[in-house]
């Protein structure tokens, strides 16, 4: 995945935050999506300006002990994209 891409949130997406996790509902994709705590962090860092690489870098700074962080970020981004709740 090209980590210079800048993910954009689907503006019609509603979120419910529950104990650090998030359930998203996209009216345009008519789908609900569960985000665990790591995926929820990624979602919260998507602001329409940060590149994927910036998100990875921010999280790597906050969680230096997380060995699989880059892979987790990519996995979360791909899941969000495949469910239509973000686009480039």
């Amino acid at each position, binding site marked *: 995945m090209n980590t210079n891409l800048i993910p954009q949130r689907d503006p019609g997406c509603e979120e419910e935050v529950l104990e650090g996790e998030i359930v998203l*509902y996209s009216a345009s994709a008519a789908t*609900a999506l569960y985000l665990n705590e790591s995926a929820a962090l990624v979602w919260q860092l998507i602001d329409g300006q940060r590149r994927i690489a910036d998100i990875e870098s921010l999280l790597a700074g906050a969680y230096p002990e997380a060995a699989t962080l880059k892979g987790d970020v990519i996995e979360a981004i791909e899941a969000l994209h495949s469910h239509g709740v973000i686009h480039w």
Partner: protein
Amino acid sequence: MKVAEKGWRLAALGGNSVALEWSDAAAGLWVGRLVGAHPGAAPSLPVAVYRVHTNRIEPGLTVFNGPQCLYTGADPAAGAHAVMEALMRVWALRCRDGLMLHAALMSKQGRGLLIRGESGAGKSSLAAWLLQQGWTYHGDEQMYAQASDGPWEGFVRPLCFKGDWAARFPALAAPPESIARVGGQTLVSPNLFGQDVLPAVSVRPGLMLFPAFRPGAEFSLQRVPAGQATMHLVQGILNGGNLNNRGVAQAAEIARVCPGYQLSYGHFDQLAPLLEMLEGSQP
């Protein structure tokens, strides 16, 4: 049981009542078997009316919903199944306030236990087992939940088992008139499992259980995070088309106040820790 030649009965779920009318005693008995375990509804204008009569020429019965013939034939269980499906459809279609869920509902001391799972997850078997442990049965298929801490209601229909239900309850002596077979399913009166009084119309929200039954499975019972519990509820919403954002926010409200547990099991003998947890959590 003596039944009037003609009569009617209202049954409600989620604030919408339906009327079942019968025009002879045999049809009245059939209506009683279908909704006799469901608590009576307060008088209100029904959203649908089902008229049942015994056929005069061919043996069997016929059910009309307005001008539409919902069932005609000689198999009372098939007729019951068709009407139950129609009732659940109309309740889901009309429900615009709160969640109509594909879930079973049990209670103890007025506190509800929502059992959510796809078809075949073991909702009915678990409900029947809990009934035998002294819990009250409020339905094995469809229930209504108001968001947050509003009351829960269930459709108290005959338990509907798939597969070889009798093997799961070998100690149960089932008189033939208390069971009916339709397709690969068996309808069994909750009375047979010990429920001999009408349950309350509604119960307080309590716990949520997400079971997965698989023969030979190890027992496990784990608390699920509220986000996952929300998704379990969202997957069971039947009236999402009537709700803002398909009811996701309401499901989240319920998951915020009601703890959810994932249960895996392969045999009822493993369920003592479940009972301990459920009864220990009673306020």
